């Protein structure tokens, strides 16, 4: 575990200090979703929040995204509060489902945040075309979401999140609804995009292999109550760049095992 007393350095993008989250269940009892979470994400770092259902990993992501407010503790995103980070569009977010607007073309979906930020039409068009190129969907710009496969829809979602050029990309189990083949392809896509754009990525997942393959650092969360049970550095074992062949490496599998054991220790 990293030292929480360490002052926030310039290269720290997200800093979470002593965060706890309690909410009231329907029967009136308090439920602790998160207790005493401490976590720091460096600029350009790819961090995976890993854990089983109910461990509070999505809650934590929502706190970073200003969708939830912690009952205790401090959160700093991009050197400011989550709210300011949101208002200044410091991060883009990708959900488990693509969350596209059916009545907009692919291109218009990517342009949505730009419209909200009141970009000029030509600028929007230019930016969205570029983003669609990044996710290899240039040919589908004028299609509607319902014409695309699940994987393509999710890529549109990623393009949309990147359209505003945020420093941070928050991803909430983005590939969990996809089939294995599509997922592997998207893994390569996301790694390529990350290399190209140097975004800070916070990636929520319950898939250990996925976390190991993609991230620099895995934050293992355990449920009841949600807490950080381990933080594992991946780069030590699995150097960049990552290639699909690595998935069969002994080192890869040992790391997977190590992560799995970090659950069982609890």
């Amino acid at each position, binding site marked *: 575990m990293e030292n929480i007393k360490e002052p926030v350095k310039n290269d720290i993008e997200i800093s979470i200090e002593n965060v706890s989250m309690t909410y009231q269940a329907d029967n009136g009892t308090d439920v602790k979703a998160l207790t005493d979470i401490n976590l720091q994400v460096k600029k350009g770092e790819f961090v995976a929040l890993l854990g089983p259902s109910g461990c509070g990993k999505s809650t934590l992501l929502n706190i970073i*995204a*200003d*969708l939830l407010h912690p009952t205790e503790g401090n959160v700093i995103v991009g050197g400011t509060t989550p709210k300011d980070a*949101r*208002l200044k*569009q410091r*991060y*883009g*977010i990708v*959900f*488990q*489902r693509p*969350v596209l*607007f*059916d*009545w907009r073309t692919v291109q218009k979906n990517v342009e*949505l*945040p730009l*419209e*909200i*930020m009141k970009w000029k039409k030509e600028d929007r068009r230019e930016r969205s075309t570029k983003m669609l190129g990044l996710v290899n969907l240039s040919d589908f710009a004028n299609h*509607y979401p*319902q*014409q695309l496969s699940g994987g393509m829809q999710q890529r549109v979602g990623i393009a949309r999140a990147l359209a*505003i050029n945020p420093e941070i990309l928050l991803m909430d189990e983005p590939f969990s609804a996809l089939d294995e083949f599509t997922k592997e392809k998207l893994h390569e896509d996301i790694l390529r995009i990350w290399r190209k754009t140097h975004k800070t990525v916070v990636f929520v997942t319950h898939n250990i292999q996925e976390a190991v393959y993609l991230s620099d650092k895995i934050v293992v969360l355990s449920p009841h109550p949600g807490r950080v049970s381990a933080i594992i550095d991946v780069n030590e074992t699995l150097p960049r760049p990552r290639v699909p062949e690595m998935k069969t490496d002994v080192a890869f599998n040992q790391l997977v095992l190590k992560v799995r054991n970090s659950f069982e220790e609890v």
Partner: protein
Amino acid sequence: MRKKHKFPPKWLVTSVWIIGFLLLWEFGAFLVENNPKIQNPEYILPHMWQIFASFFDTNLTTATQTPFQVVLEACGATLSRAGIGFLIGLSAGFILALLMNLSHIVEKVAFPYLMLIQVIPILGLAPIILALTGDIGISRMVIAAILTFYPVSANTLAGFKSVSTEQKQLMFNYAAKIPVTYWKLMFPTCIPYFFTGLKTAAPMAITASILVDTLQGDGGLGCALSQSLKHNTTIYVFWEIVIAAAAVGIFSFYLMGMIENMVSPLQRINRKLKRGDKG
């Protein structure tokens, strides 16, 4: 994709049913006609062809009009009057749904009363609303509006509620202001729901308008209906009105569907996609 020819095609099904219905009607009319106890079969169930023949009847039934002209003019009056009440009701219904979605207090206050409006026999209140307002035009609007109001606001509210949390979160994350969120997300999502409400409400508004017509001798289908029942015109005016009223009600339903097709982006897209599949 393999093209499947659907059998039976839709037009065949529809026409078989319509023919079946007409046959059933004719059978009933035949029974009525040949029942010695019944003196005036055309008052109970005339033959369909008799009714259709009356559409082309050139004999005047009032000072200046043939039965069909009477019905046609009445239809126009009823539709235009129902239209105004309908527009008022749908605007009010939409605004209330919007307010209910924006404010929890409004929602809590209004919801039980919205349910109540649905349960109260508004049409039975028509005469008293006329007595209250003192003006048949206003009371027609009030009644048509109240009847339109419930389905529109209930469906629109359901439309707003159908927006997924993630979609709302997305807009929140883009720091979109409330008007922007409504314009870009909430309204487009609720359009199909809104039109479902309109499709329910449109025939109701017309029923209301016809009923209010019967309250005072002020023209419209209901007025012509009650006049023909009072033996002031030929009884075929009555039967023509039954058919015209049904036709107007159905027309209003399909009109809403047509408007939806024009207005709703989603409908437009789906149509486009369907065409694309075929081509």
